[in-house]
């Protein structure tokens, strides 16, 4: 095993930064596709943290968790995009602020 010369904290800062960009993006952006991309960014930030810690602990399980998360995220993408296509067909928009069929 090569001793990593980039300290582990740097990976962690990057991961927290990515997570924050994603979370803020979800709260600020109105286009459902962009919101969804921000969510994917949050998931990938978690993946980065998982591989970093797996390397740090010398534990192979962490790498497998990332594969699990990737497959789960792909399933989520499929269902999510299918829903968005359906929304667009019906409403000609995917702006979450313009979807206000229900109030109360």
């Amino acid at each position, binding site marked *: 095993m090569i001793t990593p010369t980039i300290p582990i904290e740097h990976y962690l800062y990057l991961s927290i930064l990515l997570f924050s960009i994603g979370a803020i993006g979800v709260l600020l952006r109105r286009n459902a596709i962009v919101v969804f991309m921000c969510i994917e960014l949050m998931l990938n930030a978690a993946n980065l943290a998982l591989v970093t810690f797996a390397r740090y602990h010398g534990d192979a399980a962490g790498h497998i968790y990332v*594969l699990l998360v990737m497959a789960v995220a*792909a399933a989520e993408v*499929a269902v999510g*995009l299918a829903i968005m*296509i359906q929304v667009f*067909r019906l409403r000609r928009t995917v702006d979450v602020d313009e979807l206000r069929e229900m109030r109360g």
Partner: protein
Amino acid sequence: MGSYGTLLVLFVLAGGIALVMFTLTHFLGPKAPNPTKDMPFECGNITKRFDQRVSVKFYIVALLFILFDMETVYLYPWAVVYRDLGWMGFWSMVSFVSILVLGLVYVWKKGALDWE
């Protein structure tokens, strides 16, 4: 900082090569433009204008591709330790792939794979 330096060299090299390639073809390549050549090219489908509607089947095939493509991610680590896992690993993968096959049968029979 040492390993970041290595990364920087990698980026500079990769970017430099791409830049050199583009410049060289721009100056050295022969140019004879005509309308057919200027059309955007995609393989398979007949190319359409951007504002035209694409059949929704196209999205469905793309979505299904993502799903089945992602599942191969499990085949790689499995294949690496295949001999160590023994019969348990074999039967685990058989059951996993069988469920995927049922999924494939389902989307096939639903007609989600038909282009027209």
